[in-house]
């Protein structure tokens, strides 16, 4: 994949996703704070609008991309041959597999809740 070889694109993508999640979070906090007597009907109806469903989905995509790249940055720093020797490959691959599972579970599970 040429697109993800430079490092610059990962750098920009991880930050774009972060900013989007930040704005989504601010909006969600604004909604909760501006409705002190929150009840089930209000909470439920908030997540039923088409716009919030689309934005929640975009949030999930951002979350998946941000955490996938973030955990890659961490793993490729620590699970290296210089630190772990011959075991580094198996440790790194297992680590990436677990990361992938968490991202996948969160993504699919939340998508089912939202839609």
């Amino acid at each position, binding site marked *: 994949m040429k697109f993800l070889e430079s490092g610059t694109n990962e750098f920009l993508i991880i930050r774009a996703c972060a900013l989007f999640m930040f704005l989504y979070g601010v909006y969600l906090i604004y909604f909760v704070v501006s409705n002190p007597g929150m009840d089930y009907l209000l909470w439920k109806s908030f*997540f039923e609008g088409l716009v919030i469903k689309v934005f929640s989905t975009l949030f999930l995509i951002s979350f998946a991309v941000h955490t996938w790249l*973030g955990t890659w940055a961490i793993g490729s720093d620590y699970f290296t041959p210089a630190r772990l020797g011959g075991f580094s490959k198996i440790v790194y691959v297992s680590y990436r597999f677990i990361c992938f599972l968490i991202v996948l579970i969160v993504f699919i*599970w*939340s998508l089912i809740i939202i839609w």
Partner: protein
Amino acid sequence: MIEKDNRPVFLNLLAIKLPIVGVVSILHRISGFALFLCFPLVVWLLQVSLISLESFNQLQGYLVNSVFLKILVVMMAVGFIYHVLAGLKKMLAEFFGFGETLKSGQLLSWLVFALSFTCSFWFLVYIW
């Protein structure tokens, strides 16, 4: 002339005094990874809150009465608040060049800690 390399091979992390800017950076990484591991719990809370009126009220009751759940939620909130603020500090430096000198970097680092503490405290009061 080849000199004998006397440099230490192993870095003792406990012997290194990390500057404040470095502390912000490593905590950003640690909080990010912790939040990643905690996120399924957030999804579960969202699910419980949306399933039915009964489950929503039950969760609301737990949030009011259960100290354990309160502490758990506050800890995650502290993580989110810190990770966001430290991330914004990072982007200020990367895109606008703020905090790239020693002085301004240290100042912004303290600002991140102070703001995190203030927001976390506000959240603690809000939830309690």
